[in-house]
């Protein structure tokens, strides 16, 4: 029976993983991802989940074991955060280049140093080019449902790539929210069993991950790039299916508030919820402002974004990571690239906010819009809330 419960979002993700019936979970605990894998290890220990739980000695091993299990044809899940994701770095490329589907929740947390356990997007932004499908969720319900969607996307024969589901650490992972959990049969109907296209099998030998000599490497990279770019249509298809099955309205790019406004705030992740409140408040006060939310980060849905931004004169792009040595944050860089040379290109104003767990209240977004409209924000980027003597 479908039930609506109040639960910590991490535990809802663990429930989602259990209902996705993975064969192998290989994970190493790291704050703020710990509650997910802790709960999953209990499910396996209690016999509630028939899966192999590999308690590895590091995240490098967690991803390596995930690669091996996926090559053997298993449905694989792992989760990590921050330094853990950084430690996985080299194996993340191996998983995508070997075209192995798997799902990883990333409870986004800032990268040290200074040492920080708090939330921002600097962990995943350092992994932008790993060749994985990368999704961002805003709330607990999305975290639950996009976990199933992630398996379905990655395992699709047209994709066969690993998928990372990003959710903000603490702000989302440790939040207790009402979450609607459907019956197992509904999830089973949405997510079919995994049928690997190629797997390690003594009866039909295959070499996974051989040396890519100069005569092969370029073509191998091209194959992965085409698969990742092509995954956009599959993500769209799976979200449409999800919307029908669970009664949602998810899309690659979503809009909120006044869709014809000159000023739009662009968000990715849980800050989008605060911005929704800020936009509603401003719209209620008679101020025209809209919001664009990015759900799919890789591959970046450029056409969909351009369509969503139609008529905008100014985009106030909120970044949750600093990109040292460049002119602005990663999301702003992406959008400047998307709009480059287009006559309809809006002005792109970049605000880097919420770094290292710094709080960004609703009223701050109202202030950002006011400052942007008056031209009071820096042309490059503004480090929001920076304490400076200048």
């Amino acid at each position: 029976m479908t039930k609506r419960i109040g639960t910590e979002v991490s535990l809802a993700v663990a429930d989602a993983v259990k209902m996705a019936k993975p064969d192998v979970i290989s994970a190493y605990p790291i704050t703020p991802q710990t509650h997910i894998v802790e709960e999953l290890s209990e499910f396996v220990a209690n016999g509630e989940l028939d899966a192999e739980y590999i308690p590895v000695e590091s995240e490098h091993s967690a991803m390596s074991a995930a690669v091996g299990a996926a090559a053997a044809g298993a449905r694989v899940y792992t989760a990590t955060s921050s330094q853990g994701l950084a430690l996985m770095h080299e194996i993340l490329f191996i998983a995508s280049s070997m075209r192995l589907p798997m799902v990883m929740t990333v409870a986004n947390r800032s990268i040290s140093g200074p040492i920080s356990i708090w939330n921002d997007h600097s962990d995943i932004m350092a992994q932008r080019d790993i060749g994985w499908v990368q999704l961002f969720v805003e709330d607990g319900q999305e975290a639950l449902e996009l976990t199933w969607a992630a398996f379905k996307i990655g395992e699709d024969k047209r994709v066969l790539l690993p998928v990372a589901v990003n959710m903000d650490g603490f702000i989302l992972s440790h939040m207790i929210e009402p979450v609607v959990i459907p019956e197992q049969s509904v999830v089973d109907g949405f997510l079919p069993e995994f049928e690997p296209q190629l797997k390690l099998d003594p009866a039909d030998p295959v070499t996974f991950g051989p040396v890519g000599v100069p005569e092969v490497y370029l073509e191998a990279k091209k194959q992965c790039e085409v698969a990742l770019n092509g995954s956009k249509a599959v993500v769209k298809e799976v979200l449409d299916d999800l919307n029908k099955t669970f009664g949602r309205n998810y899309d690659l790019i979503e809009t909120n508030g006044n869709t014809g406004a000159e000023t739009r705030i662009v968000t990715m992740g849980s800050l989008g919820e605060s911005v929704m409140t800020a936009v509603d408040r401003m719209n209620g006060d008679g101020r025209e402002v809209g919001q664009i939310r990015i759900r799919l980060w890789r591959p970046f849905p450029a056409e969909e974004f351009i369509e969503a931004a139609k008529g905008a004169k100014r985009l106030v792009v909120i970044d949750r990571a600093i990109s040292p040595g460049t002119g602005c944050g990663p999301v702003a860089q992406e959008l400047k690239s998307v709009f480059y040379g287009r006559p309809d290109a809006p002005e792109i104003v970049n605000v880097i906010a919420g770094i290292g767990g710094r709080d960004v209240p609703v009223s701050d977004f109202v202030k950002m819009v006011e400052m942007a409209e008056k031209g009071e924000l820096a042309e490059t980027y503004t480090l929001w809330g920076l304490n400076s003597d200048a």
Partner: protein
Amino acid sequence: MSKQSICAWQKLELGAAIRDPGNASALKTGDWRTLVPVLDEEKCIKCTLCAIYCPEFCISEREDGLFRPDLNYCKGCGICANECPKSAISMVMEDK
């Protein structure tokens, strides 16, 4: 544009996996070579030491009884020239 690729990317196996064991022999590694071994037939005593020492196992006896490298695989390392007791092999810069 150089013709260095083995096959079109569309024909490459998923994830560049290899489905036919032993296909390394299809990869001609001889183009890594800078120096090529040249045999002085007068000096060669057919002792086979060059074939034994060759790390590529690419030197074998030919129809004329002499030992020569398969240049599709010879990387020009010069071990054969170094080991030849009669100094019958010299390493020569190869024009490409």
